[in-house]
């Protein structure tokens, strides 16, 4: 839409703001870009004094691990189509093949299957095929860009980073599920209640949110360590020691996260008119049915946005997870910190960088998939639809 002449900004201001935004984007993106580049180079290249050597990686090429122009071109085309297919064909296939009541399961299976095919094609099929092409292509087949995936293999296969990944998924999954279940119910109740008690509950939640996280951890720690003794009268000999278990972390993270979730979901519920509940109740729903069948379907943007924030909290948490988990239950973020705790070699450091890139990628994916719901969720209260 063209801006009218009267509203248009002067050229100097436009150029100035564009330049500032570009600078800002570069500044923000540089660290991400740099660890991505470093994670694919041999340690000598990754810590070279010359920036060009880090980018092109001459010693990585010398080790026989490089990409030719053809490799880069084919790889980029493959990635482009992989992403496009994921966003165009995959949803259609999932909808067509799964009955509506199993939609979540269908999506899960569809995405996992797609990821598996993607990995097999990218790492299993492409390299040998391209190797043959490169050997007959002459100068275009000569490696120009150093690139090695050895650090990723070291991290995921040799160091068993997948275990940390699974632990992260358990913790974040637990945090998101409990936060959203309690949050939607509490948020709905508080949004629809006009009583003074609701107001004071919300204020209390705000105060809990303001507490430093370490206070909660310090308060819970002795309880978790002694939980077997505390719970014995109730559970008998089956009473677990919660310290070191994902469950303990989930409990603390939910405690940290819940006030925020309740506040956020409450404001989403408030933007849904009361008449919708009332219409549903007159039409034949109980109060809870009205909530489940009429209000929740309208609430998806709010649930997804809140769920994403809960996910980020659980996924990125360092303090709680590092203090409460033992080594075999460790999540990804403290596991990366572990790389620096030993007598660190440059190889360890590059592996830590590869691990850091690995935990960033799912976040990008998540935001990309849910961006539309997130935007509509964030603006839902602001403008009336």
């Amino acid at each position, binding site marked *: 839409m063209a801006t009218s002449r009267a509203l248009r900004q002067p050229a100097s201001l436009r150029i100035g703001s564009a330049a500032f935004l570009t600078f800002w984007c570069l500044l923000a993106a540089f660290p991400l870009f740099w660890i991505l580049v470093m994670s694919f180079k041999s340690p000598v290249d990754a810590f070279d004094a010359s920036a060009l050597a880090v980018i092109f990686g001459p010693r990585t090429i010398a080790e026989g691990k490089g990409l030719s122009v053809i490799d880069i071109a084919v790889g980029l085309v493959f990635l482009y189509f992989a992403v496009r297919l994921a966003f165009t064909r995959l949803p259609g296939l999932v909808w067509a093949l799964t009955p509506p009541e199993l939609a979540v399961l269908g999506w899960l299976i569809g995405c996992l299957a797609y990821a598996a095919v993607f990995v097999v094609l990218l790492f299993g099929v492409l390299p040998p095929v391209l190797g043959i092409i490169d050997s007959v292509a002459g100068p275009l087949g000569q490696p120009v860009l150093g690139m090695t995936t050895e650090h990723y293999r070291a991290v995921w296969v040799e160091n068993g980073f997948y275990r940390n990944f699974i632990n992260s998924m358990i913790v974040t999954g637990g945090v998101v599920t409990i936060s959203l279940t309690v949050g939607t119910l509490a948020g709905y109740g508080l949004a629809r209640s006009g009583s003074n008690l609701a107001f004071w509950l919300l204020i209390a939640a705000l105060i809990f949110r303001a507490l430093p996280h370490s206070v909660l951890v310090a308060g819970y720690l002795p309880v978790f360590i002694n939980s077997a003794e505390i719970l014995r009268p109730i559970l008998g000999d089956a009473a677990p020691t919660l310290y070191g278990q994902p469950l303990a972390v989930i409990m603390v993270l939910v405690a940290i996260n819940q006030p925020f979730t309740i506040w956020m979901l409450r404001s989403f519920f408030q933007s849904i*008119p009361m*008449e*919708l509940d*009332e*219409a*549903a*109740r*007159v*039409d*034949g*729903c*109980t109060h809870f*049915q009205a909530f489940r*069948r*009429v209000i929740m*379907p*309208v609430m998806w943007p709010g649930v997804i946005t809140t769920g994403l924030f809960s996910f980020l909290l659980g996924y990125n948490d360092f303090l709680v997870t590092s203090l409460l988990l033992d080594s075999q239950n460790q999540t990804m973020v403290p596991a990366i910190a572990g790389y620096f705790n030993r007598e660190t070699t440059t190889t360890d450091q590059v592996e830590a960088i590869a691990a850091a890139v690995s935990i960033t990628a799912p976040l990008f994916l998540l935001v990309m998939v849910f961006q539309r719901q997130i935007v509509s969720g964030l603006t839902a209260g602001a403008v009336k*639809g």
Partner: protein
Amino acid sequence: MAKIELRNVSKRWGSFIGVDSFDLTIEDREFLVLLGPSGCGKTTTMRMIAGLEDATEGEIWIGDRKVNDLDPKDRDVAMVFQSYGLYPNLNVYENIRFPLRVRKVPEGEHDERVRRASAMVELDDFLHRKPAELSGGQRQRVALARAIVRRPAVFLMDEPLSNLDAKLRVSTRAQIKNLSHELKVTTVYVTHDQIEAMTLADRVVVMKKGVVQQVGTPTEIYDNPANTFVAGFIGSPAMNLMDGTVTGGVFQGRDVRIGGLDHADGDVTLGFRAEDASVAGPGEEAQIAAKLYTIELLGDAVMLTVRAGGALVSVKAPKDFRAEIGEPVGFVVPTECCHLYDRKSGERTGAWHRPQGDGVPSASDAERIATTPAGPM
């Protein structure tokens, strides 16, 4: 099919009284309109019938059941809301079908019943659309269809026309009237618009600050307002109300003198309707003589306004009448058209006027009242 009984129903929030001992029986198949300015408790009364609001006191009976402690879903009522209350994630068809699905009506009947309901409100072409893709009038028709699809014992309509523009309001009003005639279901209709009340109602309840002012057929209420509030609320323009004193059967106020009244001496408010008076011809004795305050052309008539008895008094004149503002005019007010009210309490003290005919409002009466051109409201 059920009659509704409200037995001394009250609603209080703390010390604030929303509805004050409302006592009324709504007959089976009756179309009852609750009328009053905003904040008069009419919507609260309806919400208490629906079960969305608890009655503080009193009993509510629908049919032969006391429903005070029943959930809205168990009261067998259907409701139409001012802002539609449609489910935005469902299309029109599913919106109409929703009550059937929730109430576990056998699946096989759904399609036929949804289609019959949608045909009654002429929505057949829009069944696949989402509510967001409909105009206001269409949305309200979806809400109507959703209400009638289940054939409830009682219809409740909460200002269903207030969100529509003037033209749609007239056509949707006609549709509601036709539907209620066809379905013959007890209906309670809330509105602040007296024209809607006049056109739709079998009986009208006029409320003010939670207290019922008058219950009656539209004609009764129009011809015999029980107090000055009803007189000033019903009709457009509302009844002229002048302050003055009666001495020896003669009402006197500023610029006004009406004789031949059968009323005790004292301070009174005298009312008459604009169409009952006329402009005094040459040589005729004028009861009101004052300078013209304003003249408004209404198309089918001319509205003349003067200041008399401490108020603005409007009188209808033939449509070709012309005069300048400030000119002296005289009005003839027939004694038999005057309504007398106690000045302090506002209650009617003068005689009740005999209704025209046998007391049952004829269709043409309602029509005549409803089509009085809209003046300033």
